[in-house]
């Protein structure tokens, strides 16, 4: 198996990240990088620290050791709202829609920012409404009244309002019907083609291999291995080693 070439000009580069929840050592040396407009998968069993990795990149979990570089500049310890403004978007595992805000208001949390012009606003809204027509239909409905799949679309659409350079996407297909899973794959493809990089945490191995260029494997809070997605198959020994039960 060939070692995949890492991105030459990474948009996000994580080096030897360590983090704790209270006294438990949840990240124990995470190193990875994501290139511009590259889709990178992050695989591993439950509880190995995949979600925590995304949260520490986003500045939502404080990393005690290690560095995160965004576009070559260190951003470790920077507050999340500044990272969001500079181009990192986060779509959490449980979607975390603002339930009492309407669909439109949920989108406005990302749209209402300095430097936004009226025409750009319309462009961005038109784009997500075209991608997710159901959101246009429900724009005045509260986020909490949407179905799970619709909430997932809203979470992604909301992240897109920030015009991010990279999206940290945590388990987007969790609990969705197969038809929705296919749609999520299509959206990842569209974002990739638009030049948005994606760091994807997923339980669905087939989807991860299909969407990603490279894949990292985590075990015990540590990135242990990485490989080109094209070199792997769903029942590869490596997959069994890191994901098998």
């Amino acid at each position: 198996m060939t070692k995949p070439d890492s991105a030459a000009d990474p948009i996000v580069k994580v080096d030897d990240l360590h983090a704790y929840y209270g006294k438990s050592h949840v990240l124990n040396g995470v190193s990875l990088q994501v290139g511009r407009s590259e889709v990178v998968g992050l695989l591993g069993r439950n509880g190995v620290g995949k979600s925590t990795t995304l949260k520490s990149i986003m500045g939502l979990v404080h990393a005690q050791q290690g560095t995160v570089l965004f576009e070559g500049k260190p951003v470790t310890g920077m507050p999340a709202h500044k990272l969001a403004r500079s181009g990192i978007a986060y779509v959490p595992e449980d979607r975390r829609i603002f339930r009492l805000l309407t669909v439109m208001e949920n989108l406005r949390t990302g749209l209402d920012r300095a430097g936004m012009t009226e025409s750009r606003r319309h462009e961005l809204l038109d784009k997500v409404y075209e991608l997710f027509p159901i959101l246009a239909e429900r724009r005045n409905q509260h986020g909490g009244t949407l179905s799970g799949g619709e909430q997932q679309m809203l979470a992604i659409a909301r992240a897109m309002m920030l015009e991010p350079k990279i999206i940290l996407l945590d388990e987007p297909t969790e609990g969705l019907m197969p038809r929705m899973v296919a749609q999520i794959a299509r959206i990842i493809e569209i974002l990739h083609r638009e030049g948005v990089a994606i760091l994807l945490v997923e339980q669905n191995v087939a989807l991860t291999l299909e969407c990603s260029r490279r894949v990292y494997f985590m075990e015990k809070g540590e990135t242990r291995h990485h490989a080109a997605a094209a070199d792997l198959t769903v029942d590869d020994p490596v997959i069994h080693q890191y994901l098998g039960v």
Partner: protein
Amino acid sequence: MAIPWDLIVVQTVNGIVTGMILALVASGLTLIFGIMDVVNFAHGELFMLGAYIGVLVLASTGSFLLALTTASLVVALIGAALQIVTLRPLIGRDPLTTILATFGASLVLQNYALWQFGPISRKIAEPVSGQFHLLYLEYPWYRLVIAVASAAIIGAFWLFLKFGRYGIWIRATTQDRVMAQAMGIPVPWVHTGVFAIGAAMAAASGVLFGPLVGVEPYMGLPWVLKAFIVVVVGGMGSFGGSIAAAIFVSLLESYASIWVSPSQAIIVSFVVLILTLLFRPTGLFGSASR
């Protein structure tokens, strides 16, 4: 016992007037609790400071409107400074520490007022004099002005929360602080802003209510006590709930004082509070919504 209809009419008007001013005090309190889980024990002192600044501005300019706006702005700045200095460093600590911090701030502000202005109560002249007939009473117009002005301030703030860009920031932060931050909303500044707005609303009610009582260092205490009752009865952190509860509790007290003395009528508020905590701890009016 015959039902004293005329008294009931008068007490309904009284209840609505006090209810509106109480709603103005309580909505600041509930907003601050809703967004940062801080129980602001210094809220009554912000009310009192507002009234004193009103006294000073009114004495030097003679304009009640100017007194009202200046007091609100100055107390908003004081509130912002208070939040940055005392509450921001406590984020992530035990909520009990914020109670101690705001209680400490309240003592400092009370004693500052005592030192600066003395124990003698000051007067704010009613900006609108004159009375109208309300059955057997000559009812002061100014009391209706208070009710209308409070309603206008609350209404304006509600519109801001509903449609304004920063209003959406406030609602998003109230619902999910972490996700709000991940969407680029500067949450620490939203907290400071909300504290400042709450302080301004307390100050505005202090100036509006000043003419009815005197302005003195401890005038905030009974109001903040009632406002706390209202916040709990309305459902902690629910904006609409605390407004409904303010009017509800004030009406009940007004009706009770038909038969008992006004100082005994306060018992009714506590009874409502205890019953709420026993049977509907999430509040009578709060739809669990924030």
